[in-house]
Every structure is written in C-alpha cells, then in structure tokens.
C-alpha cells in the first residue's frame, strides 16, 4: 500500500459543517428545534409526573405516619372497635393505635364547591399514637406532657383540642390558641387549635383530635376506620400479617405502606403513561423532521460529498461527517429541550398542578423533583432521534458512486424506478398485529407499539403511496402545462416527495388519531351524561342523609313529578386497588336498563341472591363477567352477590358497583340516602322546586343540603372534561406546528435545490409566473397527498387508541365519532401551507441569475 491509514480529518469535518450551517442556518435551527420540542415535552411531562408521584407518596406517608402496618376499613362506615384489642394482643405486635378517619372541612353548612372538603380528620389516642405514629402528635400536646412536676397531663386528652397540619392551619386562617369550626359527618363542632403537626407533608390538610371526641361528636361510636400497628422487634412481618389476617373481619383489610403507595400509583399510572407516550410521540415526530432535514441536506450536497470522495475521503469519513452533523443538531436540540422542559414543568406545576389538570391530586402543588437520570435518558432519546434521522441519509450518501454523483445535477431521480411497498406494508401489518396483544401490567404498551409501527409503516410506504395517489392524475397531457410539470415531477421523484411528506404525515396522523379519540370520548360522555342525568334537579347532602320518612315527604312535595334517591360510598375490594364506588339506587332486578346505561347482555340473578351491576371499569379491573358471583364486604360481614350486568361509566375510573337500595338497606341496616334527582312537574322551575324542598327539610339538614340544576352539572362536567384534555390539545397543537414548520422547511429546501431546474425552464421560455404556478401546484398536491395519507393513517391509529389503549388503560369503551369539521380545516390548512411555502421558497429561488444557476453545479 502506498498510503498508510490516517485518522479521519477533523479539519475537513469542521470546515464542511461550519460552511453548511453558515449557508443554511434556518434549516439547522428547525431540525434542532424539532428535537428540542420533542425532548422538552417528554421531559416536562416526566418531571411533572415524577413530582406529582413524589407528592402522592409523601402524602400517603404522612397520613399513615410511620406505622409498619395498617388495617383499614373497606368502607367509610368503618369496622367494629372490638378488632382493636384483638389486634393489640396479636403476637408480633408491639403497639396498636386506633384511628377514626373522616373527611371534613372548615366552616359551617354545605361546601361551596362540588368537590367537598379536602381535610382529613383523624381521631387518635395520643397515648397509643406516641408509640406507633408520633408524627400525628401535635407540638403543643408533646410540650404539655413535659412538665416535670405533673402527673397525668390532662391537656393531652382535651376533647376540644385540635392539632392541624401546616396546610390545614393555613386553610383555616387561624393561629394556635384560636378556635376553629369544623364540619364532618353532618356535624359542626368548634375546637381550640392546640398544636401544629409540624412533620406533616407541607401540602396536606390534616386535623387531629381525640379519638373519643371523634367517635362521639361525629357519629362513629363503636366504629374505627383504621388501626396503625408497630411490629415487635424481631417479628417476621409476613408471619405477623398472616396471623392478623385470620383475625380480620370482612370489612377490614391489611394495608402496608407499599400497598398504599401502589394503590395511589395504580390510580394514575395509566394516565401518566398515556401522557408520557404522547410526549414520546412528539419526540418521534421531531425525529422524522430531523430525518427530513438531514436527507434533504444530504441530497442537496450529494455532489459536494462526491467531490470529497474523489479527493480522497473514505466512506467511513463521509458517514462520520453526516452522523456528527446529526449528533450536533440532536445534542444542541436535546440540551435546549431539557432547559425548555424544565421551564414548562415549573410553569405547569405552578398553574395547572401536578396532574396536568387531570384532577387526581386535589389541592396540592408539588415541589419539583429533578433527578439526573431521566434528564440523561431524554437527552439520549433526543440524540438518538437525530442520529437515526441522519443514519439513512448518511448511508445513502456513502453508498453513492462518487463519479456519477459528482456530475449529478443536484436532484437525482429515476422516474422509471418503482418504489417498493413491502417495507411499509410489513410495518403496517406488524402494527396491526401488535394492536391485538394484551396489556402488560395494566398498561397498553403493545397498543403504543402498534401506533409507533403504524406511523413508521405509513411513512415508509409514502413513496409508493404518493405514486399510487398521483397515478390517476398522470394520464394524457392536459392543456395546463404547469400542472403536468408538477405531477410529472412528484410522480417521478417519489422518494423526494416522501421526504417532504413524512413529517407532515407523522404529525397529521397523530393529530387525527388524538382528535378522533377525544371526539369519540367526548361524544360518548355527552350521551352518558344524558343517560345518568336525565332529570331536572339534583340535591345532595355530604354527610348524614335522608331517612325513609323524609324521603316520602320530599317525593310528595308539590311540583315534584318523580324523584330518585341514591347514595354512594367507597368500598375497598383489594388493598392494592383504589376503592370503588358503591352506587345505591332503586334498580329493578328485571329491568336494570331503566336506571343504568347497560351495555351487553344482562343476566337474571337466582332467587335469594342479591344482584349487583358493575360499571365497565369495575368489570375490567377486577376481571368479572356477567353471571358470576363475587363477595362484597358490607355491614360488618361479607355478602355473596350476583353480577347481573355491565353498565357504561366514565366518571369512576376505579370502578363502581350499582346495588338496589332495598338490598343495601337489608344488608347494612343503613336506610339513609344522600343524593336525589328530581323530575319537575311541567311549569315548575328548578328555583321554585329548590325553595319548596328546602322548606320541607328539617333545620339542621337543610343547612347541609346542596342543590344543583342538572343543566349546570352537565355543562360543568363537559367543562371539566375539556379542561382535563387541555394538555392533550396543547400537545397536539405543538405537534402540528412542528409538523408545519418541518413542511415549510422541507419545501423551501427542495425548491431552492431546484434553482437550476427553474433556470433551465426560464431558458426554454417558461414564464416566471408559470414556474410559480407549477410550484404552488406541487405544494398543494403534496399537501393533499399528505392529508389523505395522514387522515388514513390517523384513522387507523385512532381505532387503536379507542379499542386498545383506552379500554386497557382506563377500562372504558366508546363509539367512534369523526370530527369532520376539524378534518376539513386540517386539509385546507395543509394544502394551503404546502402551496404557500412552495411559492415563498420559489420566489427566492427565482430571484437569482438564471444563467448563472445553469452554469453552477451547486
């Protein structure tokens, strides 16, 4: 060999890159920005989720304090307090602390919001809590016990003393030493603020009072909601749990700190994963845009690369050249994206809260939790998207024969080469198959894989599809020269068209898929609201309730046509799952569809067995089918019930069980109802009816009852729906804007690359405006092809979202609805954007010297 191996020339690399970037800074910036936006979205969503999760875990820890183990009641009714001495004496238990746990709020009367109070009221025995959950002792109480001369510090047992967490103290607007009024379980009591729970999570509202006061004044005599336990030193937790389980009644369950955290995690996991996936999709779109930008840049510079090859640059060197360019663009974009994502996360946490408007963590503003690893992962993802986007063009550039490429007139295409379809079709087929695979760990991972594969397949099939779509237009020459030229060019250069199209198709199809899914869900929710809120007026009381006599009186009130009383209460079937909702209302066991929006078959319960009807999420979460039997912990015992059918429900994601009121009263002895919906007689206004009914209510109850007009409720529900999808809309809009920016960049790059071609056309006598018209036609055609492909692909992906992702993560189904108006405006926008950017770029391309353009090789 005459030449020894030398390292790749770094100087050549730098000269080439700096030169290119100086010549086309806008294009480089667009590609970097696409990556930045993708990374920013992903990182921001991740940060927010992480912070929210951390807050959730912290909240769980504070309410649970430091207990090793807890026993929780499966419903707010609690379990018999006799369990407490039984567990306290159990082997392996060093200490047990009984707890009454209630939802409460400050002030008197019904809460002003639909959402009820956000305060957790705990009744504890400080003597027991001191050994198990010392964080629940107020600072004041501890100090009172420290007088060296005292015997029993009576202040510890002060029945009207309350200790508040810092957040609760702030919410109450009081100071230590002042009094505060609290309403829980329908009773209002005034306490003296005796201390602060200084170790409580900063955002959580907790109030602690004496357990005896809690039982007596808030109607919980003989009942406990919780027992906190501490293991004896050296006890085997598994063995202790097993021993405890044997002592538990059906309406109590063992909850460990882990299962509690898991429960909170389960609640929001699907929501969080969906958002992260959406963010990753945005990153993927960014990857496609980098691919577009890089492959155009490579195509344009093919002769330059050929020259370098001729002058002695090895293939490896050329690959490295394109790759390093991609890496720099990706790296800069990813760093920018991390900074942007951090900013977005801070802003979002501040203004929307930790659930991005999803409503999961009420009233908390979590602190931002930043860990280096996720930042690194998102940086790598951004870099990878850019590198993969650069890989194909780089390989193509290295493979080219430099001798031929050098003479190439910039825009190489062989109209007779038939683009292959199998690659794209294969990916689409794989995507379709993936849609049929089950969820993994409650997450629709294969559903997302399916969408990703479909996206890749759709983009890969674009050259072929573009030609198929344009073929009918080809035919015999038309009289319109510019249109013929435009069609010939697009038809003859499908790969180039595909490059321009892949960004547009990726973003359009994602947007269409999301839009169809959201429209379908919204339509189904609207229908469902009509089903469950058919009446004119609702009223409810947060605690206490309407007894049978009062109900009869209310039903007979003038102006009331019909009234349906119901009650809802949470029931815990499994310690690892969030409680589901027991919906108690009159349901005819033969005709459940009269009162519930049933879906699918209905089964008749055998005589003597209580029928229940599961909501769709409940059936999916617990894997129950119509006709099966299940155990329901109710009223101190457990009852075997029969599943009579499944009904549609979008409100209670953790699931709901409907039961006839008579059955419920028989099983629990509880004959109070807390909600009612009224049909009004013709001519009676909701305001009139409200006045009439309020007058009928006994005084203490009347103060607690809230009235709602159904119309307002429905509007409110849909408003909540829209606000919770606000972030989804925002992500979509960003994807579209990035897509359009990519399209504009691509079009202008392609147009500029064809300056010589336009020069030639001008030479042979084509008018300037004819060239512009040709470009506009090309742009519009490309936009149209993009719309058609994007719509088709998006519709396919929307079906995966509707029939795979939603049922697997939220356990509900819906009927497909197409937002045709949105499709139409999207089509117009894309065609116009295609034509517009092509024309704009064309003006620049035509402004130069045509003669010179022909003579110049690049």
């Amino acid at each position: 060999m005459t030449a020894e191996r030398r390292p790749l020339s770094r100087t050549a690399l730098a000269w080439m890159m700096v030169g290119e970037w100086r010549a086309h800074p806008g294009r480089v910036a667009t590609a970097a920005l696409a990556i930045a936006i993708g990374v920013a979205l992903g990182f921001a969503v991740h940060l927010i989720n992480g912070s929210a999760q951390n807050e959730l875990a912290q909240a769980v820890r504070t309410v649970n304090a430091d207990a090793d183990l807890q026993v929780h009641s499966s419903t707010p009714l609690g379990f018999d307090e006799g369990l407490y001495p039984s567990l306290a004496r159990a082997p392996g238990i060093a200490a047990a602390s009984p707890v009454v746990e209630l939802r409460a709020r400050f002030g008197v009367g019904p809460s002003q919001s639909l959402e009820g109070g956000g305060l957790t009221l705990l009744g504890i025995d400080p003597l027991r809590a001191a050994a198990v959950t010392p964080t629940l002792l107020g600072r004041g109480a501890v100090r009172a016990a420290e007088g060296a001369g005292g015997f029993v510090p009576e202040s510890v047992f002060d029945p009207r003393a309350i200790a508040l967490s810092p957040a609760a103290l702030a919410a109450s607007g009081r100071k230590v030493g002042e009094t505060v009024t609290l309403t829980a379980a329908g009773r209002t009591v005034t306490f003296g603020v005796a201390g602060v729970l200084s170790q409580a999570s900063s955002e959580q509202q907790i109030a602690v009072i004496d357990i005896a006061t809690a039982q007596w004044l808030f109607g919980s005599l003989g009942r406990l909601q919780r027992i906190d336990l501490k293991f004896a030193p050296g006890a085997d937790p598994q063995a202790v749990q097993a021993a405890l389980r044997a002592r538990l009644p059906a309406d109590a369950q063992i909850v460990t700190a882990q299962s509690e955290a898991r429960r909170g995690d389960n609640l929001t996991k699907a929501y969080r994963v969906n958002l992260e996936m959406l963010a990753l999709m945005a990153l993927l779109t960014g990857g496609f845009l980098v691919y577009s930008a890089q492959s155009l840049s490579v195509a344009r510079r093919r002769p330059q690369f050929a020259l370098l090859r001729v002058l002695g640059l090895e293939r490896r060197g050329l690959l490295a050249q394109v790759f390093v360019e991609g890496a720099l663009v990706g790296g800069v974009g990813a760093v920018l994206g991390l900074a942007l994502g951090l900013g977005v996360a801070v802003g979002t946490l501040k203004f929307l809260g930790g659930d991005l408007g999803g409503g999961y963590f009420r009233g908390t503003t979590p602190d931002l939790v930043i860990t280096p690893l996720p930042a690194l992962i998102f940086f790598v993802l951004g870099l990878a998207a850019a590198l993969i986007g650069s890989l194909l063009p780089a390989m193509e550039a290295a493979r080219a024969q430099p001798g031929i490429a050098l003479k190439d007139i910039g825009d190489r295409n062989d109209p007779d080469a038939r683009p292959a379809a199998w690659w794209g079709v294969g990916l689409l087929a794989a995507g379709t198959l993936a849609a049929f695979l089950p969820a993994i760990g409650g997450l629709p991972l294969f559903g997302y894989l399916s969408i990703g594969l479909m996206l890749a397949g759709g983009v890969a099939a674009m050259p072929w599809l573009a030609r198929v779509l344009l073929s009918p237009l080809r035919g015999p020459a038309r009289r319109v020269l510019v249109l013929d030229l435009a069609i010939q060019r697009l038809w003859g250069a499908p790969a180039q068209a595909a490059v321009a199209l892949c960004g547009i198709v990726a973003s359009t199809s994602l947007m269409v898929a999301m839009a169809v899914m959201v429209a379908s869900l919204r339509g189904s929710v609207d229908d469902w609201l009509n089903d469950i809120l058919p009446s004119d007026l609702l009223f409810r009381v947060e605690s206490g309730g309407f007894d049978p006599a009062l109900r009869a009186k209310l039903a007979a009130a003038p102006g009331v046509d019909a009234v349906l009383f119901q009650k809802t209460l949470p029931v815990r079937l499994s310690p690892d799952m969030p409680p589901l909702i027991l919906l108690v209302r009159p349901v005819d066991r033969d005709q459940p569809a009269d009162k519930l929006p049933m879906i699918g078959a209905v089964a008749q319960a055998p005589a003597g067995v209580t029928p229940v009807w599961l909501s769709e999420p409940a059936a999916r979460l617990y894997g129950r089918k119509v006709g099966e039997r299940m155990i329901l912990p109710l009223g101190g015992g457990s009852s075997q019930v029969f599943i009579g059918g499944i009904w549609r429900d979008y409100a209670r994601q953790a699931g709901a069980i409907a039961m006839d009121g008579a059955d419920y009263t028989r099983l629990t002895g509880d004959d109070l109802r807390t909600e009612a919906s009224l049909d009004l007689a013709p001519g009676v206004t909701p305001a009139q009816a409200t006045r009439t009914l309020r007058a009928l209510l006994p005084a203490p109850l009347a103060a607690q009852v809230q009235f709602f007009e159904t119309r307002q409720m429905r509007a409110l529900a849909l408003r909540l729906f829209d606000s919770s999808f606000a972030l989804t809309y925002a992500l979509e809009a960003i994807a579209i804007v990035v897509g359009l920016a990519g399209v504009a960049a691509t079009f202008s790059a392609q147009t500029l690359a064809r300056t010589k071609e336009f020069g030639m056309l001008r030479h042979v006598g084509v008018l300037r405006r004819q060239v512009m018209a040709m470009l506009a036609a090309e742009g519009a055609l490309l936009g149209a092809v993009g719309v058609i492909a994007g719509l088709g692909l998006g519709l396919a992906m929307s079906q995966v979202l509707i029939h795979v992702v939603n049922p697997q993560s939220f356990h509900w189904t819906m009927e497909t609805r197409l937002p045709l108006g949105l499709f139409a405006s999207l089509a117009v926008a894309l065609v116009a954007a295609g034509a517009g950017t092509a024309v704009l770029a064309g003006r620049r391309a035509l402004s130069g010297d045509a003669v010179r353009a022909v003579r110049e090789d690049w």
Partner: protein
Amino acid sequence: MSASSPVLSLTALRKSVPGGRVLFEGLDLQVAPGEIVAVMGESGVGKSTLLNLIAGLDQADGGQVAIDGTALQSLDDDGRTRLRRDRIGFVFQAFHLLPHLTLAQNVALPLVLQSVEAGEATRRATALLDAIGLTRRANDRPAQLSGGELQRVALARALVHRPALVLADEPTGNLDPETAARILDLFVAQVRGFGAAAILVTHSERAAAVADRSLTLTREGLVAHHDG
C-alpha cells in the same frame, strides 16, 4: 518514454456501459513520471469513464490499472480512496469548488484530508495561490471569481499535495478561447514544475499540442493521434 518505472500502467483494459455496449477493450497505456499525455476522442467514446477507472472511481470489466506499480483491483474501496488522496490530483471541466469554503480552504482540502494540520495546510495553499497569480485572494469565496480564476484555483487544488499523477477532464471546456489558452499554459507549466505526470482529456487540438504525447480513444483502445 522514460526508462524509470511508469506512474500509470493500463493493461488490456475493458469497459462497457450498463446497456451492454462496449466502450473499449484491450486498452494499454504506460505513463512515465513527469509525462503529459493528451487523450482525445469523440463525445461518448468513454474518455471520462477512462479517467474514473484510472482514479479508482469506477470498476473495469477486465484488464488492470496500476498506479506506481500498485494494482487498483488489489485494493478495497478505502485503499483506493487513500491511493487517490495521496497520489492523484483532479481538475474538472466544471471546477467543482465548494461554495462555502474560502479559496485557500478549497485548495487546502487535499492536504486536510491527509490530516495535515489546518494552519499549515492553508499556509501552503495560500502560497500556491500566490504562485498562480491569485495573490491576496485566499480568503475570497468562489462566488466572487470568474471562470478562468475558478479553474486556476482548481489547478492549485490538484497540485497542492504534490501528486504523482494529475487527471484533467476538459479543464478548458467552460472557458472562452483566450482564457482557455492561458489556463492551458499555466497547467503545463505547473504540472511540469511539480514534476507530476498528467492525463489531459480534451477536445481541443490546441490543448493536445502542449502534451508530450497525444492519443485518441477508440473502441479498440488508444491510438497515436495524428493531426487532420
């Protein structure tokens, strides 16, 4: 012909185009160090293809190309690329200067590809530009130059790394006759000055006249050229 070993040796070379038409076969050529050979012929006869074969940018269907005694067929693509980088210089009809690099950077490219340090490479390139009459133009960009000036820069780039063989493909094809004549003189002077051999593909009788040998490419190979 010199007695020393040839810079370039073509033996029984055969090449056809993808359609199957044979461009030439049984082509033999020996070029001695410092010798300038003109190759003429009709359009489409394969003159540029011959240059690509010599440069290792294209593969012959048969026969052998050897540079400094090394057979190109024995090398892989990287090996041929390195041989090209170190031993061969190119001048093209269309100049092929990179628009975003300065003249000095364009000229320095072959050195830079040999991993010569950037400052040293541009210094040598600037010196060469001075020598061929482009004094103080080193930091201009190609867009500011006329065709004749562009080809001077290209010539400088072909010689800056002191190749053994310069391949020139119609170097005056894009120039007016007066400029063409000046460039041709410069070309011969510089190639001889650097002691390189050269193959000059040209249509121009005037160009052929400056060569040591003048050959015509036909289907049967290279034959000695005779005026008229």
